[in-house]
């Protein structure tokens, strides 16, 4: 039989993964162009990265067009290894938006830090390629490669401030714990492969269904290690220890990027595994993972919220608050019905804007001789830069879940899902923690509006941060007032039934 390349790869396959190809090519291109740019003109790299995102967006739009044209549930490539389904497309848009905003807030910040290099943007684009693989992969190997591509790029980005001890320490901690968790995750995957003899996550799920419920210790081990690895990545308690240090030490723009894009990618992977492999409609592993998820969700809510109360460093505070937000999303997984999963998607969507907005304000506080990430540094922001202070208040209230701001809708769906599934105690606990979280968000608002500024140096955000604030602010308020379109987007994403025939309810 004559072998031909078309057996393994067709033009259509390449079209499907074109967003990733675009980002990879531009990422490599930035590395080359960077060599030609004089040190003063490094901001052109940011522009190149932005163009990469636009090209990736166009390619993504064309893939999405295939759905509309053919009424498909998913577009497959590479023999089903890559499945561009609505969920993959939803997350890919999310990654592109988060990256675009991160680039906007990075330019001046990295110049101030005197670490403005092309590699920064190249690594960010490569991380997005990894994220897209995590969101679109349907094969253990591809998912793992995507995870590692993202993780390794982010390790470097966290330590990008070479002369800053905190950044170095953060990168080292993140690398060690991240590698450890990747190892655990890989171990779980290897067990899954060993038990079922396939790397296709959908087939794994079906094979697992034949194993009697909860009987095999190997199944337990496989599920627990896989989940533990993923919980590391989303920074759920008790696998969260790396997060506060990494968030505090990383360049602020990268902290924002990690807390939204990297977290969303880990969630994309988590949801994919849960829908294809561990879904209750596919097999009975629910008995294994449900207690674990409930425990982790409660621990995450408690740990994140209580630890955030006493923080005086803004980045650290937001790190703990972002841990707490993961707790809410995990509760959506506990409910595991349509509204719960929709809640996770809506939550990730609104979280992208409000959290990046909050980090954009912290980036604006960075001045020539001031790190600007302590609570004292934001004191009196209202008197220096009223627009930024007002937006920060909007972001914080949205994070706390005060309607009619965007953040409310994520919590709304999750609480509704908990009530629908009869988890009243969990729901009461979750709403109680809103009050706790509000306490530490109010501390920041108090500092901004009710305390005088501690230094006289003006806060003058550059055009990049201004644009980012405008976009995130408009999204936070806009989604809050007119959420219909975004809720529909999440609903469209939801069925996720392509291939796996997982139909919820």
């Amino acid at each position, binding site marked *: 039989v004559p072998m031909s390349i078309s057996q393994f790869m067709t033009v259509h396959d390449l079209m499907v993964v074109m967003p990733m190809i675009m980002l990879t090519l531009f990422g490599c291109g930035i590395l080359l162009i960077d060599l030609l740019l004089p040190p003063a003109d490094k901001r052109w790299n940011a522009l190149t990265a932005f163009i990469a995102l636009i090209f990736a967006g166009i390619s993504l739009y064309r893939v999405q067009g295939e759905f509309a044209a053919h009424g498909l549930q998913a577009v497959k490539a590479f023999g089903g290894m890559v499945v561009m389904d609505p969920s993959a497309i939803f997350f890919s848009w999310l990654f592109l938006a988060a990256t675009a905003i991160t680039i906007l807030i990075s330019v001046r910040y990295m110049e101030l830090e005197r670490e403005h290099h092309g590699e920064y943007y190249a690594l960010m684009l490569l991380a997005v390629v990894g994220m897209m693989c995590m969101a679109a992969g349907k094969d253990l190997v591809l998912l793992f490669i995507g995870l590692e591509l993202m993780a390794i790029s982010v390790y470097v980005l966290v330590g990008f401030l070479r002369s800053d001890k905190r950044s170095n320490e953060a990168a080292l901690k993140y690398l060690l714990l991240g590698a450890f968790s990747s190892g655990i995750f890989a171990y779980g995957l290897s067990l899954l492969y060993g038990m079922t003899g396939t790397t296709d996550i959908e087939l794994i799920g079906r094979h697992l269904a034949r194993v009697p419920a909860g009987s095999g210790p190997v199944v337990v081990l496989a599920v627990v290690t896989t989940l533990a690895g993923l919980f590391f990545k989303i920074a759920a308690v008790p696998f969260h220890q790396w997060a506060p240090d990494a968030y505090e030490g990383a360049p602020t723009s990268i902290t924002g990027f990690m807390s939204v894009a990297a977290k969303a990618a880990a969630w994309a992977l988590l949801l994919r595994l849960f829908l294809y492999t561990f879904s209750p409609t596919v097999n009975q592993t629910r008995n294994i993972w449900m207690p674990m998820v409930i425990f982790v969700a409660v621990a995450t809510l408690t740990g994140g919220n209580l630890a955030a109360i006493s923080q005086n460093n803004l980045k650290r505070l937001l790190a703990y608050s972002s841990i707490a937000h993961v707790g809410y999303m995990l509760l959506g997984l506990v409910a595991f019905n349509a509204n719960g999963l929709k809640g996770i998607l809506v939550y990730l969507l609104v979280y992208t804007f409000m959290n990046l907005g909050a980090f954009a304000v912290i980036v604006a506080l960075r001045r020539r001789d001031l790190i600007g990430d302590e609570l004292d540094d934001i004191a009196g922001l209202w008197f220096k830069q009223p627009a930024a202070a007002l937006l920060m208040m909007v972001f914080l209230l949205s994070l706390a879940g005060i309607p009619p701001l965007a953040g409310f809708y994520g919590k709304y769906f999750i*609480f*509704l899902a908990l*009530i629908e599934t009869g988890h009243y105690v969990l729901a009461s606990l979750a*709403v*109680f923690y*809103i009050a706790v979280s*509000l*306490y530490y968000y109010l501390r920041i608002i108090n500092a901004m509006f009710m305390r005088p500024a501690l230094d006289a140096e003006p806060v003058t955000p550059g055009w990049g941060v201004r644009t980012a604030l405008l976009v995130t602010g408009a999204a936070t308020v806009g989604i809050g007032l007119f959420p219909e379109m975004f*809720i529909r987007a999440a609903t469209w994403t939801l069925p996720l039934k392509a291939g796996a025939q997982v139909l919820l309810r």
Partner: protein
Amino acid sequence: MQSHILSIILFTPLVGALVLLFVPKEAKNAIRWVANLFALAGFIVSLPLVPWFWARVDQPGFKFVEGAPNNWIPSIGAGYFLGIDGISFLLIMLTTLLGFISILSSWDAIQERVKEYYVWFLLLQTGMLGVFMALDFFLFYVFWEVMLVPMYLLIGIWGGPRKLYAAIKFFLYTLVGSVLLLLGILFLYFHHHGQAGTYTFAFAEVTGPGMAVFGGVWKSAAAIGSVWGMKYVILLFLAFFIGFAIKVPMFPFHTWLPDAHTEAPTAGSVILAGVLLKMGTYGIIRFSLPFFPEAARHPQVQFWMVTLSIIGILYGALVTLMQKDMKRLIAYSSVSHLGFCTLGIFALNSLGLSGSILQQINHGISTGALFLIIGILYERRHSREIAEYGGIANVMPVYATITLIMFLSSLGLPLLNGFIGEFAILQGAFMANKTWAYWAVWGVVLGAAYLLWLYQRVFFGPVTNPKNQHLHDLTPRELATFIPLVILAFWIGIYPKPFFRILEQPVNELVQMVGQKPQTMNAQTQPAAAPPPAPAATEGQR
């Protein structure tokens, strides 16, 4: 015009806030003028509602309905859906009036960050009005939360020495209540989906142009008991109740109130006491009773509600006697007065309920005025210590007269408004259970004691403190803030019939829902079967 009157009333303050954003912050007087004009406009646009409402006073259900269910966020079933009945009508008029008075009273008191102050205040006004108008749970909840933020900033920025503590305490207390409320709402919403197969947050349904009656989520709420069991009805009732009781505040959820009231700027206290607390009682009347009648008339629930109310009445009054700070004194007296309001509600008869609503209005008028009175003294002397004063009647005679009227109105002297409200409540309580009335009546006695004693210490006798020798009497602007309140106090005290008339239809409907026979009002407050007086203005109607 009539079909959009509620939106106009609702958004006039918001428009004012937006306009203020474009006034430069150095032009303090311009800001004051703009804010006052918009506050006045907010009151004036609500005035046509009076004759229009009067003309439709007997029409059942909600009037002036605007919008429709599910038209805001169709995919979750939230709608921009407004409408009012007699209860919300009175509270809306109180809000627009007190909002204007508070803003007028802030002219001299607020000298720093003037622009922000008025922006937040107008925003607060919109939030409060929305709460009383919403016919959709989602919309209701949005307004309920929206108004927390401006109030928090008003206390936290322009408040007294312990403002940060008070502001955070206020925010967190109310938030804990409102998230429980959210859970309750979500359960109703979910239950409604199970019953009707559709998702909606609307608790009313349109019956004609501008008309609506209870429906939607409310309709399926009746089946909670049979589908889920009585336990769920009680739990839901409690989730709603705690949310509202914190706002009222009922004993033992009242501890945020003295701090918030004392530390808030004068106008903030006026609005806090005058309107914000009423949102709690309004919530109980609008939601707790009609949605969970089985729970409300459950003897044990009723016993506890009434007991907490009576404890509130007596505890509030006793603590008041011990206060050295005038503002704190009035704050605790609010706990006592609101105890009367909740007692009237849980008497579950039409006398108690209409007395309670009227007493809410009275409390807004009297206590609002009392906070203004203290604010005026504070502006002149920067002290609220009772011991600092004495003999003020000699130096500020007009002020002393108005204070006396308001004190008497607050303690329930016949011919003034407080008497009518308290009398109806006590009568309602008496009809329900004589013991309740026995205990509650001590609250009236104590009320007279603490207010008259306060008056004696501050106003009578010689001027003991030399600093008080040359205090100037009320300015015309200050006097203007009191005149409408004094007029209202006398009007309700002497001729309360129109008020009871407005309340009659919604209250009887409510009593029917709760399942007890509507009693006829006593002759003094309501001559039975009186035909509605001809509406004053008919040309404004459709």
